[in-house]
């Protein structure tokens, strides 16, 4: 190729990136999915006979598909084009559930602009293959959807309101000027406190920390906490102790803290995610994630 070699290589890469999104069916019984286009790349999972995914890039004999939260590469020998509609995710991050409804576990998340072959429906829910399993996502957040509207997010002119420094079931452990939030946050926290008190009158109150400043905006030392949708909450002790606590303390109760998250916070607030580092909590709960520095508080984000 002489001097044209690098140019052709670039053109080849460009052509690969510009491939149309195409549904492909798995033709091998169990096919390896790799992190890169070649047998030398690590295996990140498997896909199975007759499952359908979306192909969107190519390198030599390897094809890139949307496999899970991240894409993966499979050998072209084991997939074939198929006439199944595919859809793009329009949400910034979309829950992937084990069944068709919000009562089923969140088992993963699909990225914005990722593509999925829709192989079935149940009401507003769409059936896809995700990391080798049958999974479900809400159809309102896939393109080319004819669900009859409802895809726009909530619109509200409500302003920030302040959390009272104490109330049934909770206390504040920060300045009151750092506890402003959207109505769904403040009323959600009040409802959580009340529910906590009613269910566990002898357990310690919940410690509530920073939410946002009065009008939102930059709020050091936090990266987030700018929109009235984030709150820090202390872990719960196994005694009546009220105060600072880490997951390494002998006073810390994994059981009570998990109860707080699953039976109260998740029920009373529009939980988007929780950052917290107790593996007994983030392990079994899909919406709870490990994140550095979250061993002394739960970070709850709502939508």
């Amino acid at each position, binding site marked *: 190729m002489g001097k044209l070699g690098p140019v052709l290589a670039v053109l080849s890469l460009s052509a690969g990136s510009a491939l149309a999104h195409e549904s492909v069916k798995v033709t091998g019984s169990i096919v390896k999915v790799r992190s890169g286009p070649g047998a030398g790349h690590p295996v990140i999972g498997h896909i199975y006979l007759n499952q359908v995914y979306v192909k969107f890039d190519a390198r030599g004999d390897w094809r890139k598909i949307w496999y899970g939260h991240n894409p993966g590469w499979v050998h072209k020998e084991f997939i074939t084009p198929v006439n199944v509609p595919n859809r793009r995710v329009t949400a910034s991050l979309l829950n992937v559930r084990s069944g068709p409804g919000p009562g089923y576990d969140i088992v993963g998340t699909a990225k914005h602009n990722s593509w999925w072959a829709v192989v079935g429906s149940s009401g507003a829910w769409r059936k896809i293959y995700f990391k080798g399993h049958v999974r479900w996502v809400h159809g309102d957040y896939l393109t080319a959807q004819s669900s009859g509207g409802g895809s726009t997010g909530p619109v509200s002119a409500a302003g920030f309101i*302040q959390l009272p420094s104490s109330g049934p079931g909770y206390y504040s452990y920060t300045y009151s000027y750092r506890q402003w939030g959207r109505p769904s946050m403040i009323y959600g926290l009040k409802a959580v406190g009340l529910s906590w008190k009613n269910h566990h009158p002898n357990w310690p109150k919940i410690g509530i920390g920073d939410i946002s400043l009065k009008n939102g905006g930059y709020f050091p030392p936090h990266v987030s906490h700018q929109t009235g949708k984030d709150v820090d909450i202390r872990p719960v002790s196994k005694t009546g102790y009220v105060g600072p606590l880490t997951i390494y303390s002998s006073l810390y109760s994994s059981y009570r803290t998990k109860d707080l998250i699953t039976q109260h916070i998740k029920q009373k607030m529009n939980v988007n995610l929780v950052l917290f580092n107790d593996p007994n909590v983030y392990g079994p709960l899909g919406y709870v994630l490990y994140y550095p520095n979250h061993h002394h508080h739960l970070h709850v984000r709502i939508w």
Partner: protein
Amino acid sequence: MIKYALTAVALLGVGFAAGRLTVPPRDPQAAALWRRAAPEEPGPGPVKRGCNRKEPQPGAWDPAGEVVPEDGHLETVQELFAALERMAANPATARRDLMDSVQAKLLHELRENPSALAWALGRFRATAGTEPGGLLAITLGLLKDPAVEALALELAGNGNRQQRLAALELLDRLDIENRTTREAILRMLRTETDPELLAAALYTIPAGVPEPNEARAVTEALQPLTAHEDPEVRRRAVLAVAEWARDAAGLEPVLKALADFSVDVRAGAAFALAQAPAATPEVLGALSARVADEKEDWAVREQAWRAMARFPMDQHAYAVYAAFKARHDAIGEQQEEAQAGGSCRDH
């Protein structure tokens, strides 16, 4: 330099030998050495996402551990508070677990040592309304001590405006069920004209189960404020009225507030109806109408929808409830990307 290194090593030796952290030394250079030497996250552990750092399993080691800081410099409550102030003044660099440790120690001192409490009360009197005063209020609010309550009541009644606001916030933090405090707050609600003070006082009314006459007195003091010109006063008054209403008639101002021109007041009224002791079919009808109104603000509709869940519903109300729930569930499927890979500071 060697001196600083030795200081840091010595402090670490004392602090970590007991499995506890100390607060950094005061000297900036020694403190920098201390920070460099102190492990940010002790021990091995899984990293699921975010920054590439490790943390131990629960129970493995107690880094902050509700601890008494063992730095010999922090023997007095004044020094503890000064350390807390220094850390609070630099939130971008302060470590939350260290602040928690110092606060825990301060709380312990105030509980156990009458002279420490006396110092703190004097300090609060002098600094109420300032940043240090607010910091002290966070700790004093956890004490539930009559001396703290008495000072807060005194300042709420006779202090300057800043002191009164700070004292009302402290009373809110104390959350002590007390008729004397309740009566003092009610007097303020009847006579105060400053909207900010009124709003603060409305968050301060001690809860409880008073005798019927007292409950009536509370609602009578609150009801005029549900028509106050300041929407935040109205909102807080509506919440308080709902909490104290003992029958359907008592909820009238709250139902009326569902039609307030302020979206914040309407959302507050909807939430208040979910918490109100009295629940009637009329209340359900009003909530259902808010939820069904497509032109209504989402915040109001959502609070009204959550409030509906406590009522036994007829077919029509349930249809409204279920339709909104379907929409709500759909929106809930959308997530925002966690800020993984960004700063490792606290979220």
